[in-house]
């Protein structure tokens, strides 16, 4: 069975390219372009791994991550966050929200794949 990856980001072009890239790499992909829909979508699709942007309008990645953590049954998929501007101060907050990995933008596709593989393997 294919690994199901859920992408949450407000940038549509980003989602499009990532979607293409992950499909090419043999993953099943669900794209969510609205942070508010993240919780429902997770319950619906039960992804194996979630790629989550930290900076989004309406709802930040931290909030989404925190929410997902408490939707038990929501599969407990590992969350990998993506951010353009990483500060050391953010690390404790990420730990608190149960985030395991952090990818720094601009993402390199090969990095993304290896991180996904690592996360799924360690699940």
């Amino acid at each position, binding site marked *: 069975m294919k690994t199901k990856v859920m992408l949450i980001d407000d940038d549509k072009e980003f989602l499009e*390219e990532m979607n293409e890239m992950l499909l090419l790499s043999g993953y099943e992909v669900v794209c969510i372009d609205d942070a508010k829909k993240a919780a429902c979508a997770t319950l619906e699709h039960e992804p194996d791994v979630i790629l989550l942007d930290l900076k989004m309008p309406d709802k930040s990645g931290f909030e989404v991550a925190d929410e997902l953590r408490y939707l038990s049954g929501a599969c407990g998929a590992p969350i990998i966050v993506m951010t353009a*501007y990483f500060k050391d101060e953010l690390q404790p907050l990420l730990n608190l929200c149960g985030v395991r990995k952090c990818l720094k933008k*601009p993402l390199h596709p090969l990095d993304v794949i290896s991180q996904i593989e690592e996360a799924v393997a360690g699940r």
Partner: protein
Amino acid sequence: MVSRRLGLDAAEKYIRSSRAILNLSARMFSRSQYLDAAAKLIFGFSGCRCVGIRLADAAGHIPYESYQGFSGKFLETENNLCLGKDQCACVRVIKREAKPSDASAMTPFGSFCVNQSRDFDKTLSKDERCLYRGVCIENGFLSIAVIPLRYRSSIIGAIHLADERENRIPGDVIGLMEFLSPVIAEGVQKFELSDNIRKSYDIQRKINAIMRLSLEEIGLEELLRQALETIVFIPWMAFELKAAIFLVDDDDPQTLVLRAHIGLPKKFEKEWARIPFEQSLSGQAVVNREVYFIDYADRGQETKYPGMPLYGHYNLPILFVNKILGIIRIYVREGYQRNRQDEEFLFSFAAALAAIINRRRTEKKLFKAYEELIESQNKLSGAQRLSDIGTLAATVAHELRNPLGVIRTAAYNIRKKSKDPQLYGHLDNIDKKVMESDRIISNLLCYSRIKLPHHEKVRIYDILEECTAAAKNKFKDFKVSVLKKYNGLKGCVLEADPLQIKEVFGNILDNAYDALAGNKRRVIEIEGACDQAAGEVKISFKDNGAGIDAQDLKRLSEPFFTTKARGTGLGLTVSFQIVHLHGGRIDVESRKGEGASFSVAIPLFKKQ
């Protein structure tokens, strides 16, 4: 009125005589010139062989200010006569205190006059004789007269007439003298007043000159020296051309420091450079806040030394609102008599200096405070700029890295989908440029986020190894021979922020690699040594690249200064900043075309 009492001849004589005296007061230039001429006139009018004009001075003596005919010996004994202490007819005339024994010789005007002194002497009892010094009789004067010099309601001195012959001073001569007395006194007073006015004017001018000096932009010491020069050159003051100013030491308030002098021999300059209070009379002036006048004559034998000049000196405290700032020492000529007028002048001089010194010091403090203010303002605006850059950098990072990510992924997808190898070169270029852009953003972020170093124990050798390896990897398409000469750093541990130090070495190495791009032979030489004596580690990075222009050399640490087509101009700024925060320094040596050498010195231990 005169004519009715005296007859016309006498009246004419009176008028002519008084006009002659008045003429003198108009024609003469000084008091002494006037008195000399007046004595000569009186000599002629009276027909007596000896004539003198005595004037009371501030000390209560009544010296002969001018005279005709008296012998030197006579004057010597008489000049010391003191109104307060001595008894004689002349003293009593001036003090208006005639005794009953004088009565027979007194005129209604208050003059004392005898025309046969021996006969007068015989009429005196033994006790009464004590009231007379008898100097005139001893000198053989038979005719003696003392006529008070009246100025308004006071008596300022006397005219003394004397002659060895008897009956030389008849009533009309006494009458004439009494008539002339107020005229002469008026003249004396006129000269005295004009002298005083001139002196006050001089003093005012000198004080003004000193005040004007204080406005000039000269150092305090030069100002003090010029102020001393101004006052010792006052002609009517009996000052030597020698003076000094000592100020209380800022660091040691128990010591006086010689700050300015004129006319002191070199020897004293050294000996008096610093004087503790208790060791000198100058010091005593400071401690007691009083004027000290030391007369040569008053010195004990033991404090005199051969070749010591015969003059005394004033020590004046410089007081500002009861705070002692120092002292002025002024030397006076031999035979100088301490007097109130001079002291008052010196006091105002000291007060003026005190005000100037105090103002200078306050100005200095103000100036320093102002500089500090400007400096902290600069720092603040610098900090403001940094935080602006920080905000900007964060925004740029967000807004640019997202699209960069999309571009990168898109390029990846194209490569995957397209079977056309001709596209690969272009896709590689896209990848390369995305990486470069990301590096610029990183630099910008790094610059705005320089924090105080987080010190920990760092193995500097390992860090250098790591950085050279990283640089080599980054520029792997580039053949550069890296000469490592830093084995001496093995085992060397220093207190520093490892991340920041890596940043510094990384930036310098990046630059070195970039500088070598145009070279065929590319060498980077890294030397390192631990200088325990200086307490620092020194590492130099030398390349044989393009070198740096002299004018650019100065601007290396300036933010946003760059000569590269694609650079933020922040790499070295960050490096200088970091090393500075570590208490170290970066020295750069370079010439255009001859490579560059960056020497980094970092202290072994964190500075407290």
